């Protein structure tokens, strides 16, 4: 499919390929068709005619100002809120009229402030859905261990604890474990990280990305934090009041080509900077600079400095870790003593670092470059201001072209649809993608 590249969602370390995880999605498709919610006594609907297709294994973020109906839209998927009209299809099965209790057992549900039951232990909380769906005890117990492991909590230590004996971040992990316990194809998350401190939130987001790389669930994630949406989403639905979709696209496309003023207002200032968060150092060109190790004879270092095209050499320590930058004059001034010459390397980045981190390091470095290191801190190359600028330009240009192409396709699709409607179906089909 000539989709613009899906979000790399690449914060998971070790994911060598950007783009869609290669594994088979265990998720299900979700289709919302003309989904509407009216509350009695209120002339304007809370959610007005939402049409949306979510692919299997995709993480879609609903983002929008508070009161825009994003939570209502999400809660209609597991029918915690019954839609007034419209259809919901999960894996092509119409679930609009099925028994909501049965439906919900097939949809994981994680909410803000974890929603753990305080009178049950961690294990009892996680075992709830498997037990309700009639799993035998042995299988449930094994599953509880597995889920705790999955969310990074030691089963031996945490199984018997009560929620109040956990930190906010740990509670949230257990909440996710409970949502995933019966292995549902679809997971709904309602601002799950809204109530934890920023550092823990960052950590939990990374964990979610890692989980999603392993599990490939279809996840609908609601947040009002656009940065969170960019970090997590394969695609982002920016919603405005009454849950009208202002734009539904990849984070890259929304950042580089916001559909209208509402979206660009929501994206906020610094879209280009935010774009840097979506790209890793591994995705840009790394240049090589002349290097020497501390064990090299002085004379060879002199020769390198004189012969080299650049006027500096990166001195590596015995483990090949960047140690010092040496300029041509430095050795002279230090009277040939390596211990005193040059400037120490303060900051390095790994290939998994975001371009934003790299830019930060480059900006603070007095010569505008930063060494890239491997897993054990060994030297791999250098990123400098020029490389960064060029890569960012290329990225933005690429995004823009993708977005334009995408828009073309959308328009074509729409005109085709209109044609079909005019020929076949009666008019009055509600507008979509307004």
């Amino acid at each position, binding site marked *: 499919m000539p989709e613009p590249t899906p979000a790399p969602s690449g914060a998971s370390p070790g994911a060598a390929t950007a783009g869609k995880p290669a594994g088979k999605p265990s998720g299900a498709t979700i289709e919302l068709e003309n989904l509407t919610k009216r509350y009695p006594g209120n002339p304007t609907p809370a959610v007005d005619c939402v049409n949306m297709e979510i692919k299997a294994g995709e993480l879609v973020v609903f983002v929008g100002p508070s009161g825009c109906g994003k939570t209502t839209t999400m809660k209609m998927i597991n029918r915690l809120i019954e839609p007034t009209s419209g259809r919901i299809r999960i894996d092509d099965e119409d679930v609009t009229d099925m028994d909501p209790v049965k439906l919900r057992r097939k949809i994981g549900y994680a909410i803000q402030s974890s929603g753990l039951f305080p009178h049950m232990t961690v294990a009892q909380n996680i075992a709830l*859905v498997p037990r309700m769906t009639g799993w035998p005890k042995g299988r449930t117990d094994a599953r509880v261990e597995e889920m705790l492991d999955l969310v990074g909590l030691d089963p031996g230590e945490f199984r018997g604890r009560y929620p109040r004996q956990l930190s906010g971040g740990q509670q949230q992990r257990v909440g996710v474990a409970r949502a995933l316990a019966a292995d549902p194809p679809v997971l709904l998350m309602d601002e799950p990280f809204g109530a934890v401190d920023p550092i823990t939130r960052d950590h939990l987001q990374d964990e979610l990305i890692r989980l999603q790389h392993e599990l490939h669930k279809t996840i609908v994630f609601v947040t009002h934090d656009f940065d969170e949406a960019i970090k997590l989403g394969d695609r982002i639905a920016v919603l405005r009041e009454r849950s009208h979709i202002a734009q539904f696209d990849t984070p890259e496309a929304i950042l580089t080509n916001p559909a209208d003023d509402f979206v660009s207002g929501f994206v906020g200032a610094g879209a280009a900077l935010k774009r840097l968060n979506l790209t890793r150092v591994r995705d840009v060109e790394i240049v090589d600079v002349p290097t020497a190790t501390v064990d090299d004879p002085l004379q060879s270092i002199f020769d390198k400095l004189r012969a080299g095209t650049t006027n500096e050499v990166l001195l590596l320590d015995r483990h090949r870790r960047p140690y010092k930058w040496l300029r041509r004059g430095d050795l002279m001034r230090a009277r040939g003593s390596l211990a005193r010459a040059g400037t120490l390397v303060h900051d390095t980045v790994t290939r998994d670092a975001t371009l934003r981190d790299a830019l930060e390091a480059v900006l603070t470095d007095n010569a505008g470059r930063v060494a890239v290191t491997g897993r054990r801190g060994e030297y791999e190359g250098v990123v400098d201001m020029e490389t960064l600028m060029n890569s960012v330009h290329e990225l933005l240009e690429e995004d823009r072209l993708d977005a334009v192409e995408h828009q073309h396709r959308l328009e074509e699709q729409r005109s085709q649809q209109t044609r079909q409607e005019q020929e076949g179906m009666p008019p009055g089909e509600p507008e979509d993608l307004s």
Partner: protein
Amino acid sequence: MTFWEYVGSRHEQLLADTYQHASAVFQCMVVATLIGVAIGVLTYRSEWAGNLAVTATATVLTVPSLALIGLLIPVTGLGVAPTVTALVLYGLLPIVRNAIVGLRGVDPSLVDAATGIGMSRFARLFRVELPLAWPPILTGIRVATQMLMGIAAIAAYASGPGLGNEIFRGISSLGSANALNQVLAGTLGIIVLALLFDAAYVLIGRLTIPRGIRA
């Protein structure tokens, strides 16, 4: 005859009365708890139904116990029936009120979570809402029991069972040798019973309130 000599000589009668008193209060409390919690469960979701239940049970409590038992005699006759009816009615208020307050006090996000992970209404009530509302309900039961201890003594007026008989006998024979001893024995018996019941509730609380929500 001193008080202790009196107790010594009548201990069989006293023990029987005490046992009957405790048994009457206990049984009435079981019935009142079942009815009270049921009323709470049925009414807590609706604003007006809940308030109606609390007001109705509160109204019962404003009727003097002697008058209520007197009014019940023509309907139910003498003996156990008016006693049980009166005690259950009086026991309802604290239980109904605390059940409604407790059930309404359950964090709405937990109810949302319970529904969201696929619990039926029944499962949600019995596995989430009632367990979380149990501590206040138990407090209501405790208060009701202490109240009934005293009210049960009045039941002797309608020939009901219990330590009230001892007190009424004493009052009706004022001036006789044992009048004071009889009243004192009945009253002290009720106090001791009330303390024992209270201790039992502390134990029940320990055993039935899950560790995760114990204060």
